[in-house]
């Protein structure tokens, strides 16, 4: 069964004309915590190019858009300033290409994706396990302690944090850098969430 993906906030901008969808999204985003995801629903087709342009210029992460009839559902993740700090880098890293190489050699890898469920739904590595960073503490027991875990996020920052957390608890982990933002290996989407 496909799990229903929920954003931290759903913002209804249906029926609103430009510039209101973006004006309201900006306002709502200001109130969100860094890393949280908003789902903005609009009927103005122009909102697609505008939300993408706005996200790029503000540093927020445009995750993707779902189409449901006339409704466009845009998912955006608020920029996280904490993530940008690269203090305490976790020592064991592997680059995207090496992981792709192992996957091509049919190696059976345990890939842990610590991005938000919506980000995961839009694009992820086939077979990857999804546990968002925020749930990692409580769901750590779902992971097998002896197996090597390759941890990935969008840019390598959240996964760095996850690696340090897991390694303190005795897990064997490697951080995949730079992560999904540069990933050109195989991907898939969760059933009902095609882009």
């Amino acid at each position, binding site marked *: 069964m496909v799990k229903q993906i929920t954003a931290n906030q759903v913002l209804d901008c249906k029926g609103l*004309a*430009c*510039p*209101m969808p*973006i*004006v309201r999204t*900006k306002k709502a985003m200001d109130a969100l915590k860094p890393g949280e995801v908003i789902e903005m629903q609009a009927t103005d*087709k*122009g909102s697609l*190019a*505008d939300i*993408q*342009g*706005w996200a790029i*210029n503000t540093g927020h992460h445009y995750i993707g858009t779902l189409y449901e009839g006339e409704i466009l559902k845009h998912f955006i993740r608020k920029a996280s300033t904490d993530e940008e700090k690269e203090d305490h880098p976790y020592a064991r890293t592997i680059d995207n290409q090496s992981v792709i190489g192992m996957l091509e050699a049919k190696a059976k890898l345990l890939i842990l994706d610590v991005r938000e469920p919506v980000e995961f739904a839009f694009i992820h590595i086939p077979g990857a396990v999804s546990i968002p960073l925020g749930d990692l503490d409580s769901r750590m027991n779902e992971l097998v302690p002896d197996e090597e875990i390759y941890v990935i996020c969008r840019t390598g920052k959240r996964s760095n944090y996850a690696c340090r957390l897991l390694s303190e608890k005795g897990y064997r982990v490697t951080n995949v850098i730079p992560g999904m933002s540069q990933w050109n290996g195989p991907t898939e989407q969760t059933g009902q969430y095609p882009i």
Partner: protein
Amino acid sequence: MTTILEHGQPIKMPAEAVARAIINQLPLFILDVRNSSDYDNWKIEGIRVESVNIPYFDLLEGVDSALPLLPTDNRRVLVVCAKEGSSQFVAEQLVALGLSNIYFLQGGMKAWSEHLEPVRIGALESGGELYQFVRLGKGCLSYMLISGGEAAVVDPLRMTDVFEEFAKQRGVQIKHTLDTHLHADHISGGRRLAENNGANYWLPSKDAEDVTFHYHPLDEGNQITVGNTRIAIQPIYSPGHTIGSTSIIIDGKYLLSGDILFVESIGRPDLAGNASDWADHLRTTLYDKYRALSDELIVLPAHFGKTTELGEGGKVSARLGDLYATNPGLNMGNEDAFRLAVTTNLPSQPHAYQEIRKVNMGFIQPSAEEQREMEIGPNRCAIHD
């Protein structure tokens, strides 16, 4: 009635006023607040138009960052967006900062794309008149020939009410509508205009093989007359842009060249099929068939590419003999050079051109809003940008 002029409000400028400013070469500064890809693809242009692009979503924190880019002289500043809302939003903030001479485009680029400016081309023998309708926003040109209480419209655009209103004002009845070819850049108003007015719709039969509707074949030898004074519309088969492309000579004086020959360029042969198949047809039409016509014919094309092609009063026309001297498309040397020029390095195709062809063939019937959306952007029917 007393009008109270509200202090500190930006002024709504209709597309018509923008058109007049461009045609009369008045200075205009445009702040285009659409996203950059839309701006790069298509914008308002004119000889004395200067424009900058700052997306409205970069001005949500305030418009201060736009100020250094605005003119310091007393030029009018027109804020432009896709539909109107965002330009008004930005214009109001500029006015709130104390700026004057701030306007926003009524109806946005959507209205701009649909505005038609009628320009009189000239009188015809025995009392008729010929008008050109300039669609500045997209570079399309339609024509209306009036004679003896009747009218024929050539390459009519989707905005059929404009032609109907124009005919009504002059007390003439639209009897014929003609398309010089199956258009790929815009949705033809030919069929609807004919249906609404009980007129005949003419289309070249070689471009109409798959169409789903009744039409009269606009083929060489089938002469059409308008009005009692028998103004002759003489079709000339001139393939190249499409296989059926047909030019028409009106009154032995005007050559309506469709998308075969423009003032500063020539038609591209790739929108309806295979460019290399039709390159030779295009060359034969331009270098042999047109060459044999009188140099004195006034060429009236179905498009223009740049605002430099707009002449007096906004009209787009040129003497055929002059074009043989100045138009690069008519001076391409041997057949190989010509073939290379019309099949390689062509500009990108018009927006949604395949869907537009389907609409013009009667296969699909999109809503008015969808048709508007399909036509967004420049016409791109010439081999030069």
